[in-house]
Each structure stands twice: as C-alpha cells, then as structure tokens.
C-alpha cells in the first residue's frame, strides 16, 4: 500500500504547521502519521446511518443547563508589568518586539 503521507505532502504540512524538524524527527513523525492513519481507516468499516448528525461534544447543552452569555466587560489586569515580563522581548514602552515581519510592497 502506498504511503498516504508522502515526503512531499509531509513537507507541506510541516511548512503549514510552522515547525522546523531534524531529519530524525521528520522520519519518525512521517512514519507514525502513516501508522496512525491505518488505525483511523478502521472507521471506514463502521456503518454510519445516512441521517447521523455530527457530535461536537458529548453532552447536550440545552438552555436549562447552559449558562447565559456574560456581559462583554472590560476588566484590566492589575499587573501589566508582570504580564509583559512573560514576553521574550519587550521595549522600554512596553511593546512586544518580534523579528522582521515578512511583507511585500504592493505596487
């Protein structure tokens, strides 16, 4: 059986996922993806009645048990500096610093 995730498709997924991988990691991950897909294909042997809806979570959320939406209230965090200290790089004014953002000039 041909591998479902070919090296080219794998490279495309890695690019979309914004991951830089070592060759050893790439070999392991592509192999495991293809093995997991074999297990996933088991689902094709399960008959699904045509009117079966999707379930996005198991427990129904009918109004009596569902909390009403809360107000979209603005609540400032009391310690701005503590939050900013989590950022890998900030400047004196409190902006988060990142490397150059790729862009192209529109003509």
């Amino acid at each position: 059986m041909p591998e479902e995730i070919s090296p080219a498709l794998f490279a495309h997924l890695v690019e979309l996922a914004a991951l830089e991988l070592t060759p050893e990691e790439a070999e392991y991950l592509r192999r495991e993806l293809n093995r997991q897909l074999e297990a996933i294909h088991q689902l094709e042997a399960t008959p699904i009645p045509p009117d079966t809806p999707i379930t996005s979570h198991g427990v129904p959320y009918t109004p009596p048990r569902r909390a009403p939406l809360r107000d979209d209230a603005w609540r400032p965090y009391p310690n701005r500096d503590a939050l900013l200290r989590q950022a890998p790089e900030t400047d004196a004014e409190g902006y988060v610093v990142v490397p150059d953002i790729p862009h192209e000039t529109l003509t």
Partner: protein
Amino acid sequence: MNELWSYDAHTLARLVRERQVSAREVTEALLAHIARVDGAAGRLLEPGQDPEAVHRAAPGVHAFITVTAERALAQAEAIDRALARGEDPGPLAGVPFTAKDIFTVEGTPSTAGSRILANFVAPYTATAVARLEAAGAILLGKVNLDEFTFGSSNESSAFQPTPRNPWDLSRVPGGSSGGSAAAVAAYEGPLSVGTDTAGSIRQPAAFCGVVGLKPTYGRVSRYGLIAFASSMDTPGPLTRTAADAALALQVMAGADPHDATAVTLPVPDYVAELAKGVQGLRIGLSPDYFRITRVDPATGEVYTEEVQPAIRAAVEAVAQTLEALGAVIVPDVPMPHTRDGIPAYFVISRVEAASNLHRYDGVKYGYRTPEPVDDLRAMYRKTRGQGFGLQPKLRILMGMYVSAAQYSARYYERALRVRTLIRRDFETIFDPQGPYRLDALLTPTTPTPAFPLGAVYGDSVLMQYADQLTVTANHAGVPAISIPAGFDEQGLPLAAQFFAADFREDILLRLAHAFEQATADAAWRRARPPAVA
C-alpha cells in the same frame, strides 16, 4: 502523631477542624514525606544528560515538577489563624493536594510538561484549583504529566526524570496524569487534581492503585486548564478513597462565569449520597469492554485481543461483591462502537490539539529560540521546532492533515459522526425506558496493568490503545471512575471502571464507596507501595 502524611483527606480535615493538629503540622509532615520519597524533581536536562543517571543519583517517585513549599506553609498558617479566630476555614481546611502542571496557578511555573512553557509563570489560577484553595486545601506543588497531556505513560514530558510507578519503580505510572496518580499512591498528598481527555485520570489511577474520577463534561470548569482537546478535556480528582473523591468533586464542580461550557446544574451533596448504598442499582457488563480491537502494525489487519485474565477476574469479583450488596448485574450488554473510540479519537483530538497549539509562537510568553533569525516566520519555525517535543508535533501535523478542506469529509466529519454512534451506545443502555435501564456499566479500566518504562513509548499507535476502554467516556461526555480492585501476581495494581449517565457522578461514587467498604478488611487493602514502605 505518627504518619500524618498517610491520612486521607476526610481524616485530615477533621483533625485540623478539631484543632487536634495544625494545618502547618500537616503541611510540614507532607513536605518532609515528599522530600523522603520523591527523589529528583522533573527538570529540563542539559543536552546529553541521562535521566536514568539523575534517577540513580536521587531515586524516588519523581512525581513533582515544582514543590510550592513556601506558598503551602503560608496557606497553612492562614488556615490556622482562621481557626484560632473561630472562623470556618472550609470543608478541605488543612488538606494538602497537588495539581497536574496543566493547571495554571498564579505565580507558579505552569509548564504543561513542555519546554515551550518551561519559563511560563501563570498570571491567574484555574477555577478547579482556586475552588480547592478557597475550601481550605493547601497546594503542595505541581506534578508531572505527559507533554501537554499527550500520552499514556508520562514518558513524553520534557521534565525528566519522569514519574515512576510507586508499586514498581521500573514501570510507568500511566498518563497523562501520571504525576498525580504516582503522588497520591505514594502518599504525597491525599488528593491531586488531574485532567482526562481519553483516560488521563482513570488509566494512571488504575496503574497506581488509586481512585480516579472523570466527571461529566461540563461538571467542572476548564478555566485555567492549558487546552488539549477542548471538547473532551475534563478536570477531576485522584484520591485514595471514594469519599475523598466525592469531597473534592463537591468543591470543584459547578457553573463558572469564566467557562461557558461549565453547566448551571446544581451540585449534589456527593458525600451525603455515599450513604445510599447500591441496593437495586442495575449494573451492566459488556463483552465489548473485555477485549481490545486494533490494527496489527505488521500486517495492517484488524485483530481482537482479550484483556488480561487477572483484570477480567478482578472486574468479575467487583461485580460479585456488588451483587452480594443488592445490586443487579445485567450481563451481555452490547456496546458495539467501543472499538471505534481510538480511531475516532486519533482524528478529533488531533484537530482540536492542532488548533490549540497554534498559540505557542514565541511572541507573548513561553520559549523563543535564542538563534538569530531573518524574519518572524523563521522565528516561529525554530521556536516551535525547538520548544515542542515529538508528541505535540505529531498531533499538530495529524490535526492539520485530517481537517484540511480536501480531507475533512473523509476523516474529521466521519469521526464526528462515529462520535454520535458512541454517544448513542451510552444513551441506549442508560435509557430509563430502554431495554437495559442501567445505572452503571462496569468494565476494566485498562487492558493490562502498568507496563515497564520504555516498553511502549515511541510507538504512538500502541500507546494510544492503552486508552481504548476509557476514551468512550470522553467522546460521549459521560462520567466514569476507576477504582482499585486488587493486585496481580507481580504485585501490580488492578482496577475496575464504572460509567454512568450524564451528571450521575453520585452513582459512580456510591458504587466505588460500597465496594471499598465491602473489601475494607481484605489483605490487599493494607498493602503499601515499596516506594513508601
């Protein structure tokens, strides 16, 4: 008072409330016990550093990533002061507990077991933890887990050495709440709060011989839980007794303005419910939960394997005990979609994980690559490449593939329809007007007892199948509990599991408590793990 560290939560709460001991004495006893049995805490090792050598140099259970000793002692003193003033310090006053390091706790490292969050200090506290603390419980620290909860052995954590099974230090504690289960089994706190997305509370509880309760989805708020699969993640307690699980759930459960999926249903008095016993409860047994169906990695063929005979015997003994107490055993209950649980989970959980893991980008918090980069995209790739371990990478890639526009109908939508069929299996057996009218389904928790370190890790398919008998509860949202049910010939814990209908944790806890009481005098109940003895 001897061995304060060995008492359950109910006993400690009573002793502290009656001022027979102070919360500070309890906390100090637990911290000293942790220092005695835990060995080296999990940490990021230097390149080339061998976790086995770290284990040999400071052997132990390795349940912890962070011990919050100062915070714990300060909390204990506040409890003692409140008691001295005659105030009610809460139902868990003076009870030490641990939290899986997937819960944010303000001012503590909250790592998710990942390099990418190793330096993250949470700016707020998860609701489940906040409620335990508000009830007087004392946080001893944050315990290890599989990276982002992605595993069933705890071996994928970036923080090494990873937890060991207290009953046999050469074996895994299970996962992903492996640190929680190991800590409770090794008496490093009578309570740990974990999370369960496919069995991550129940499977390690089974491997370590403790009680693990996965509540109904929506019963406990997910606020402050670092997300894996948002439609399945469920916080819950790990304890040594059913009564302690009842007490912890009572405190943790309930609506939360921070989580719209936390339901507004009233929280029952779970502890009071325990006294109701099991007379007349209808308990099903399903042949579909006494076997594992999976794909042979060599041939691609689907095959079926029975659970280990010792596990089957232990579960049947639980059934006989409950029958003698007046429960009605209903055999041969069909649960035909049990075998679809893992294949569907391979799809659904990966899609949700990939979505949740996109936020780690080295910009606002967490790890950023120290290497020079040309632009932002290169920074993302290097940061995520270096910060994530193999298991998050695997989940991101699979999630992106099976939810891509051209493959989604074939994979994601199919899996979500199969999820409906899994849910219907439970709706049928718990339907009060249906053919079975069950109050609970009794099954094994796992197909095998705890396996040796290194025996499965790396084989992502085999590892996932460790959850085949538990993951159905996460698809369906129903509650389930794993309880100790004896030991095998090697001295490894055996377990049984109950499922119940939505929001019927009370029934699970009654069954667990009744079995515990009925076997209280059994010799196996007195065993202590070698890591503690």
